[in-house]
C-alpha cells in the first residue's frame, strides 16, 4: 500500500542551521503517527514540509505517492490544526469552519450545512454565530479541528494542538482525538514534545533529536526498548544506568535502561538508601541512591513504603535490563 507520507533523505537547512537533516519517514495510510522531540529537534519543520509551508533543501517528499516538492500549500489535500489555532478573528465560527469550502467556490447553503455538521462532530453545535474571541481555549481548539476536517483532508497535521490546554481538558481531548481518528480513518500526523501524549495516542512514534529521527516504532517498543540514551531519557522516566554502575552490578560495561516499575524492594540484592518518597495515587515512587547513582523505583499501591533514609535492597529480573547504543 502506498504510504500516506513518505520522506526520502529529506533535509531542510536554514543557512548553517540544519533544522531537518536526512530524514527518512513512512507514515502509513489511516495511521495515527506522532512526531516526538524536544523543541528545535526538527519535528515541526517536518510537519511544515508536509503542509507545504517549507520546501526541502534536499530529498523527496511524497504524499500518497505524488511528489510534493514545489506544490504550494493551497494545492495539497492536507490540512493543519495550528498550535495557537490560527482562527480568523474577523469571521464568525461558522465562516471560519466553512472557509475552506468557501474558497473552493461551494455555495453558501451547502458549505454552511457541511460546517454545521463539522461543528456537531467536535461537539460545538450552534456555536456558529459567535466570534473566536468569545470562545475558550478548548472550544477554539475544537473549531480549528472542525475547520480542518470539513475539507475531508487525506492527511491531517496537528502541531502541538493540546499544548495550550489545561491538564484535564488535555486528557479529554486526547481521548476524543483518538476516537475521532479511528471513526474517520484519516491519517493523523501529530507533533508533540509531551511523551505521555505521544505514547498514549499514537499507533507509531518517531522520536526526533537534532534534526533527525533517533528511533521509530510503536509506543511499546519505544518505551520498552529505547535505542539510545537520549530516547530513554526523553521518552520515559526510565532509569539510566552508566557503564560503570552496570559493571559494578555484574553486568556488561554498557549504558542500560531499567524501568522503575521493574525494580522491586527485596530481602537481598543491591544495597541502596531511600532519598525521597512521592505518593502518586496509583503507586508510590521512591528515589533511591545506589552507589553514586540515583534511581527511581515504582512501588504498586498497597506495597510497604520504606521511610526516607532507610537502607533497602533492590532486585530486578535480568531481562528487564535493556542495553542501548552508546550514542546520545
Amino acid at each position, binding site marked *: 500500500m502506498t504510504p500516506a507520507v513518505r520522506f526520502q533523505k529529506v533535509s531542510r537547512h536554514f543557512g548553517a542551521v540544519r533544522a531537518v537533516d536526512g530524514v527518512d519517514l513512512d507514515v502509513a495510510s489511516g495511521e495515527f503517527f506522532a512526531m516526538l522531540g524536544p523543541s528545535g529537534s526538527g519535528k515541526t519543520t517536518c510537519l511544515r514540509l508536509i503542509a507545504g*509551508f517549507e520546501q526541502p533543501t534536499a530529498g523527496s517528499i511524497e504524499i500518497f505517492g505524488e511528489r510534493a516538492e514545489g506544490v*504550494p*500549500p493551497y494545492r495539497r489535500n492536507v490540512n*493543519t490544526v*495550528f498550535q*495557537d489555532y490560527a*482562527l480568523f478573528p474577523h469571521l464568525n465560527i461558522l465562516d471560519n469552519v466553512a*472557509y475552506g469550502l*468557501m*474558497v473552493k467556490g461551494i455555495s453558501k447553503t451547502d458549505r454552511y450545512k457541511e460546517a454545521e455538521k463539522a461543528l456537531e462532530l467536535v461537539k460545538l453545535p450552534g456555536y456558529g454565530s459567535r466570534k473566536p474571541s468569545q470562545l475558550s481555549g478548548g472550544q477554539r481548539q475544537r473549531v480549528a479541528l472542525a475547520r480542518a476536517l470539513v475539507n475531508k483532508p487525506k492527511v491531517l497535521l496537528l502541531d502541538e494542538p493540546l499544548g495550550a490546554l489545561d491538564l484535564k481538558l488535555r486528557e479529554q481531548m486526547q481521548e476524543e482525538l483518538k476516537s475521532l481518528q479511528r471513526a474517520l480513518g484519516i491519517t493523523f500526523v501529530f507533533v508533540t514534545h509531551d511523551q505521555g501524549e505521544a505514547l498514549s495516542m499514537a499507533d507509531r512514534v518517531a522520536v526526533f533529536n537534532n534534526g533527525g529521527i533517533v528511533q521509530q516504532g510503536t509506543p511499546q517498543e519505544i518505551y520498552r526498548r529505547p535505542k539510545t540514551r537520549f530516547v530513554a531519557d526523553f521518552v520515559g522516566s526510565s532509569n539510566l544506568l552508566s557503564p560503570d554502575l552496570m559493571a559494578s552490578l555484574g553486568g556488561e560495561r554498557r549504558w542500560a535502561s531499567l524501568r522503575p516499575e521493574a525494580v522491586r524492594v527485596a530481602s537481598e540484592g543491591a544495597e541502596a538508601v531511600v532519598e525521597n518518597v512521592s505518593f502518586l495515587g496509583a503507586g508510590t515512587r521512591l528515589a533511591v541512591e545506589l552507589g553514586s547513582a540515583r534511581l527511581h523505583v515504582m512501588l504498586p499501591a498497597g506495597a510497604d513504603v520504606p521511610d526516607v533514609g532507610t537502607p533497602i535492597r533492590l532486585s530486578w529480573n535480568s531481562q528487564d535490563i535493556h542495553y542501548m547504543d552508546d550514542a546520545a
Partner: protein
Amino acid sequence: MTVLTVDTPGSSILPRRGGFAGALSDAFWRHPLLLLILMLTPPLLWLGIIYIGSLIALLLQSFFSIDDFSGVVNPEFTLATYAQLLNGTNLDIILRTVSMAALVTLASAVLAFPIAYYAARYAKGRWKAFFYLGVMLPLWSSYLVKVYAWKLILAKEGIVTWVFAKLHLGFVLEAILSLPVIGGNSLSVSYLGTFLVFVYIWLPYMILPTQAALERVPANLIEASADLGASPRQTFRTVLLPLALPGIVAGSIFTFSLTLGDYIIPQIIGSSRLFIGQAVYAQQGTAGNVPLAAAFSVVPIVIMGLYLAAAKRLGAFDAL
C-alpha cells in the same frame, strides 16, 4: 543535604517612607481616582475649552449671515449662508475638493499597501530602521520647502520635462498634459500636478497606520488560509485586506481630511481654481465673510462624519 535558612525581618509591615512625598504616594495608592482626576483635568480643560470651544464658536458663526452692503456680520440665526454653499461656484469648489481628496486617498492606499506589507512582514532589524527612516524623513523637512521644491520639479523647465525629453518621450508628457481637466500648460499648473504633490506629502500618513495594522496580523493566519486551499489572491481578499482595513481607514482619515483642508498646495501648484481651504482663507481674509468661511469649514467635518459612518457600516472596524 544543605538546609536553607531565611532571615526573617522584624516586622511584616515595613516602615513608612518619610516626608511629604512618601505620604502623598501612599494617599494616591489608597485613592487612585484622585490621581486620575489630577492627571486628566489639565488636558481635558485644554481640549474642552481651547479646542472644542473654538470649534463650536466657528459652527455658530456659520449660522449667521453678512450684510451685503455694510459687510457687517448679522448675529441672527439663518440658514442662508449654507444655501450659498449650493450655488454654482461654491458647489464646484466642494466637488473639486472632495474628488481630489478621494483620488489622493485611493492612490495613497494603493501605493502604501505594498510598502507597508513589506515592512510589516519581511523587513527586519536594519531594514526596518531604514524603512521608518525612509517614511519619516520627508516629514522632518518643512512642508513649504517640499511644496516649492515640487513646483520646480514639475515646472516646464523642470527635471520631469527634461527626463521625458532625454528619453525621447516628450510626446507622452505632451499627450498627458493635453488631456482635458487634469492637463494644463505644465505639470506645475495642472490638477495632475496638484494630485502628485498631495500624494507625495500625505503618503507617510497612509503607510504608517497600514503598516501598524498589518503588523498585528499573525503570520499563521496567512498560512492557515493557504492551508485551507485559498490562493494568494483569495487570501489577500478574504483575510489580509479585511484585517488591514482598520489601518487603511485610519490612514485614509488622515489623507482625506488633510487634503480636504489644505490651502497651500493647490495655491502653489495647480490651476487657479479654488479648493475648500483656499475658499475659507479668501472668505475670512480678503472678503471678510466669516459666516461663509465658517460654513465652508463645516463641509469637511460633515463629509468626514459621513465617511466614517459609511466605513463603519462596511465593517471597517469589525476587526479592531
